[in-house]
Structures are given as structure tokens and as C-alpha cells.
């Protein structure tokens, strides 16, 4: 029924199956929307946040999706600026994932603030000294860039592309994509960094506070670096999951491998820097405020020292070593383990830099504060996931997200179906790559 919309040369599941899938995920989405409306109309009392946990699950989710969404800017950077051509096959998907992550981040922020209708005050009454101001500006701008990067893909939909205006628009946008990629990378550097700065500048919170250069604490650079390092892993992870779900090979191994390799080296350098930072913080910064390392990691099982071991050793060094070795990259299981660990690692880092910062008492007579999210918080956090799945499903079905898909998955028409195939949809014809 919707075959006219489906890209040429690829096979998609029947519409009813697709709708069933969208419907199922849609229910989750609606649950999230309901929770979101509750938060907007009844206020943030719907959450389990409190005056000690002013930042909680949402801010973590926000930081995490931005971190893993970092695959978009970094892949773009590699593809357009450093000219890594192999990545053209994954760049569309990277952009789509980035778009989902950043739109989710903005949505979460809109739910998280106590006065959503005044959210624009951050621009209007901007305090340039605040890391959050920097985040807001760069985040919004970069979201604009991602939209511009995503738009040509939408315009490549078979029906839209028929309109000459859109066809030309899409073509021309591809021409200048390098400019946007550069802009995106620049913006990302700052907002990823300033998100790191959000925690690092808190000189009232010795657990978060880091020294640094000029106005930027070390977390500023660590966050950018870790997003660049682990973001591509998330892109690979989602690609691999998509391949599993669609039971198709969608991206050529060389693209994945290259990205994995670069990612591996990035993770390694990042985690060395993180280790040095942690060491300096534990032996110099924190003690100067009267804290020993273990005071931050005691009192309860949730925030035990295991969290530091997990973040740095298990989710840092292990994936790095897997991905920088050829053997590791060639081993499918190894890659799976590495990308999953890397994604967990960066999410854990964001968790610690948000939630544990809130949990650790600073005044000697204060106490550890633990928190668990309310269902409304969980639902609104799952909302972007459901939204992402739906957007990926729709994009995958109707847009030529994977330029090599048709080439790698030739359709073998069954006798009775062969007649139905339009002459123009000859299997040997390569799909128009997004950037063509």
C-alpha cells in the first residue's frame, strides 16, 4: 500500500507488520507523553526529585543522550573534514541518531525545568558565566545543524524527490554539508565541553569540582573527548541492532571497522586522560578541601568504589584495547562487547557526574541522599527512546538511510512477485547515495 514511498531496490516488511510495530512502540510513547503532560500541568512534584536531588534521572538522560549522540558530530568531522570516505555509508545513520539524541535532549530539558514557558529566558537573560547558558546556546544551534543535516535525507524520499524544488534543494544542501559538519563539530566541542563544565565548576561540591585551564575545568575537555570517543560506538551499536532487527547487512564492514578503530584509540586516550584526572583529583584537589577519595565512595552500595572501577577499568580500558587491536575488531563478539561497554562507560560517567555529585554530603553533619525515580520520570525518560525507535523505523522504511543496503541485500523476486516489480526497480541498480 505504501510501496510508492519505499526506496527503490529494497525490501520492507508488510505494512501491517510495520504498523503493528509502530503501534506497540507508540503505546510506550503515549505513556511517556502522558507522564510528560503530568509534569507540565501538575508540576515537578510528579517526580521523586527533591531539594538535594535537583538534578536527577532526567539530567543524566540528557547528558547521556548528548554523549552518545556525539557520534554524529565526530563521524561528520571524520567524514567531511578529515575525508574518511568509507564513513559515507554510515554517516546518514549517524546523523539520524544524533538528531534523535539532540531532539530528545531538548525535550527532556523542556520537561525538566520548573517553568517551561520561561525556558527562553536562558537566551533572553543569558548569564555568560554559566556553563548552562553555553550548553543551551550550543545545543540549540547544533540541533539546528543536525536538522539541516537530516533534511536532505528526508528530501530523498522517493515521492518528495520527485518535486524538482526539493530535489535541487537536497542536492545543494549536500554540496555545502562540509560547512555544516564543521560548524557542528565546533558547536559540539563547546556544548559537550560545557556539559562537562556544568559539574566541573561546582566548587561547592568537591566530588564534582575539577581544576582546569582558564575558565574551563578538566571535565570540559574530558566530556568532549569521551563523547567523541564513545558516540561512534553508540552509532555502531544502533547500526548493529538495526541489522539484527532487519536481519540484513546494512553497512559495509570497512566503515564499521574504521569507525571502531578510531573510536578505540579515542577511548584509550580519553581513559588515560580520565585516569590522570581522577588521580590528580583524588590526591590533590579533593584533599585540599578536606576529603579523601574513599569518603566519596562509602556509606552505601550504590555509590561504592566499584562504580569507579567499572567506569575506568571495565568500561574504559577493556573496550579501548579490544578496539585498537585488529584481532579484537575482527571478532564480532569482541566488537559487541567493546561497543556495549564503551556506551555503558560513558553513561556511567554521566551518571556519576550528575547523581553522585548530589548524593555525596559536603557539610560534615549532612547525610548521604539517595533517590529513586518516580514512574513519571522513568516514563518521560523512556519517551525519547520510543520516539527514537519510531523515527528510526519510519526513516528506515521510507528513506534511503543506508546507501549500500540495496547493493548488499539484492532482492530475489519470487516468480509471482516478479511481475509486480516496477521495471525501474531493477535489482542491480544501485540506490542513490544520500550525498549523490
Amino acid at each position, binding site marked *: 500500500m505504501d510501496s510508492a514511498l519505499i526506496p527503490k531496490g529494497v525490501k520492507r516488511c508488510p505494512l501491517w507488520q510495520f504498523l503493528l510495530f509502530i503501534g506497540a512502540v507508540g503505546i510506550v510513547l503515549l505513556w511517556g507523553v502522558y507522564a510528560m503532560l503530568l509534569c507540565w500541568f501538575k*508540576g*515537578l*512534584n510528579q517526580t521523586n*526529585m*527533591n*531539594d*538535594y*536531588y*535537583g*538534578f536527577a534521572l532526567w539530567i543524566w538522560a540528557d547528558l547521556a543522550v548528548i554523549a552518545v549522540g556525539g557520534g554524529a558530530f565526530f563521524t561528520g568531522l571524520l567524514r567531511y573534514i578529515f575525508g574518511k570516505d568509507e564513513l559515507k555509508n554510515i554517516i546518514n545513520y549517524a546523523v539520524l541518531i544524533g538528531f534523535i539524541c539532540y531532539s530528545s535532549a531538548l525535550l527532556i530539558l523542556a520537561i*525538566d*525545568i*520548573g*517553568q*517551561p514557558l*520561561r*525556558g527562553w*529566558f*536562558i537566551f*533572553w*537573560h*543569558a*548569564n555568560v*558565566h*554559566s*556553563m*548552562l*547558558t553555553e550548553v*543551551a546556546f550550543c545545543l540549540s544551534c547544533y540541533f539546528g545543524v543536525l536538522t539541516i543535516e537530516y533534511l536532505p535525507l528526508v528530501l530523498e524520499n522517493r515521492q518528495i524527490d520527485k518535486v524538482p524544488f526539493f530535489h535541487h534543494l537536497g542536492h545543494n544542501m549536500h554540496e555545502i554539508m562540509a560547512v555544516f559538519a564543521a560548524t557542528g563539530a565546533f558547536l559540539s566541542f563547546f556544548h559537550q565541553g560545557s556539559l562537562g563544565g*556544568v559539574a566541573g*565548576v*561546582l*566548587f*561547592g*561540591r*568537591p566530588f564534582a569540582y575539577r581544576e582546569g585551564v582558564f575558565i574551563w575545568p578538566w571535565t570540559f575537555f574530558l566530556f568532549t573527548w569521551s563523547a567523541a570517543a564513545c558516540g561512534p560506538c553508540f552509532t555502531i551499536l544502533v547500526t548493529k541492532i538495526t541489522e539484527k532487527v532487519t536481519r540484513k547487512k546494512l553497512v559495509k564492514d570497512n566503515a564499521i571497522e574504521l569507525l571502531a578503530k578510531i573510536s578505540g584509540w579515542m577511548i584509550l586516550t580519553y581513559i588515560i586522560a580520565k585516569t590522570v584526572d581522577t588521580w590528580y583529583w583524588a590526591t590533590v584537589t579533593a*584533599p*585540599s*578541601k*578536606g*576529603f*579523601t577519595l574513599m*569518603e566519596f565512595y562509602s556509606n552505601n552500595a550504590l555509590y561504592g568504589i566499584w562504580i569507579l572501577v567499572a567506569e575506568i577499568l571495565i568500561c574504559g580500558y577493556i573496550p579501548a584495547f579490544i578496539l585498537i587491536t585488529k584481532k579484537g575488531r575482527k571478532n564480532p563478539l569482541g566488537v559487541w562487547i567493546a561497543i556495549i561497554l564503551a556506551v555503558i562507560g560513558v553513561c556511567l560517567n554521566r551518571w556519576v557526574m550528575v547523581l553522585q*555529585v*548530589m548524593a555525596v*554530603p*559536603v*557539610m*560534615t*553533619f*549532612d*547525610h548521604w*541522599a539517595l533517590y529513586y525515580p518516580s514512574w513519571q520520570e522513568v516514563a518521560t525518560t523512556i519517551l525519547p527512546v520510543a520516539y527514537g525507535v519510531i523515527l528510526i523505523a519510519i526513516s528506515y522504511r521510507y528513506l534511503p538511510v543506508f546507501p549500500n543496503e540495496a547493493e548488499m541485500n539484492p532482492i530475489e523476486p519470487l516468480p509471482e512477485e516478479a511481475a509486480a516489480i516496477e521495471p525501474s526497480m531493477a535489482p542491480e541498480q544501485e540506490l542513490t547515495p544520500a550525498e549523490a
Partner: protein
Amino acid sequence: MKNNLNHRFGMVIDLDKCTGCGSCMVACMAENNVPFRKDESDKLLSITWMRVFRLNNGKPFPETDICYLPRPCMQCAGLHEGHSPCVSVCPATATDYGMETGIVSQIYTRCFGCRYCMASCPYHSRYFNWWDPIWPDGMEKYLSPNVSPRMRGVVEKCSFCYHRYQLAKDKAFMDGGRELKENEYQTACTQACPANAITFGDLNNPDHAVHRMVKPDLEHGGRPQNPHAFRLLERLGTNPKVYYLSSRKWIRHAGDNYLKNEAKMKKPVHHG
């Protein structure tokens, strides 16, 4: 640090005198139209601009000792004037540092509730309006017009009763623009304290009691020179304007974090 403020309003709380009665908390609530709810036992959701903490020396019976510590907003100056932990992070300039008074303000109508300032404050002096403030029918009659009730979704905190400063200034202006006298601007908690444990005044003014009591070293971040005086979390560089006095060593020690080899004394614990 340069001390370039006209005034530097600050508070000295004598913990030897403080009885932990909580009158300062209520005086503050009554003065500043602080809302209340049916269950206020979750202290992480309870708006108390002034909160009295209970400290415990952690020793077993009968060596146990407790001490109360009232905690208003510290009105931090930071390492350089105006670099308070919260003021520096507010993305919308909804909280600001008064260069004339040293008081950290909060503009409720500008705050959009991101709560970054709360995350930045190690004293937990900042509170979020998780709920709409609701007064039982008729009770809104006692609301003071000098302090606007806050709407849901914004952050609020102690203002050192800034409106009292404005009223006093207005009065002084009408009296021919004279200088404010020490007793003309006093916070509600200071005024109410049954034990006279709170003293309020201008730390810059050597004639004011607060200055005489703690002898702040204004060249060095306002460090107290009175050996019995201390500030909370002095080492973080927040440079608070609230000083505490105590003759008991364990209490002074509880004011900040120390490494084990820095001091022999056991750290106090919360809630015994």
C-alpha cells in the same frame, strides 16, 4: 581579596547560646511568606530558608553531646566578590550578587527552575517550589505584601530579609538621606531569636557588633580572626558571610572537612 563593597551584611550565630528552639525558622517563614504543606516531614522537600541542623559528637552515652546549628543562606562572596557558587552558575541571571550589600538575590519571576544553583550550593540553602503554594482558606490574610509569594517551579532562598533593608533605606532617605543605623536593618530571625544568639550587621563596619565579634580579615576572604569563630566549609572558598561562634572544639571542627592526619578529633555524625 579586595574588599570593595559598600556594605557587607553578615551574621554571627553564637552556638553556645543557640538552644535549637527553631524560632528563627518560624520567624523566617512568617516574615517571608514561606508556604507549608500537610506533611513536612520529608526535609528534602520542605522549604526552610533558615534550617536548624542538629550536630552530634558521635560519642557513646554518657559522653554524647549535641549542638544545633541554624543555617540561613551564607550569602557567599566566592573567591572574588560576586563569584558565589550559585550566582556564577545561574543561566538566566535570576540570582545575583548585590555589590552594594553583598547579599545574593533571587528573582523569582525570572528563575525558570533549572535548579543548577541548588546543585551548586553545598549548604543546601536553596529550595525549589515543587508544589503550588497553597494557604488554607482565609490564611492568605496574613501574607506580607513586602515579600511576594513564589509560584510553583522556581527556586527560593534566604534573602537576609532584603525587603527590610529596602524599607530601612527608604526611611533613612526620607529622613534626609542619612546613613542606616545598625539596629535599623535586622533580619527577622535575628530579631526573634529568644536566646539572642544571632547578631546581624555590616561586617565592613568596625563599629558593628558582627565585626567586633569575629574580626573578619577582609584582606583574606573574610576569615575570622576570633579563634572561637568559624565558617561552614571555609576550605571550599565560598567565602560565606555567616559566622559561627562556639567554645566547643568538636563543634568548630564540624564546620569543615579535615583529613585524618590534619586533626585528631573524630568527625561528627548526623543524627547520632
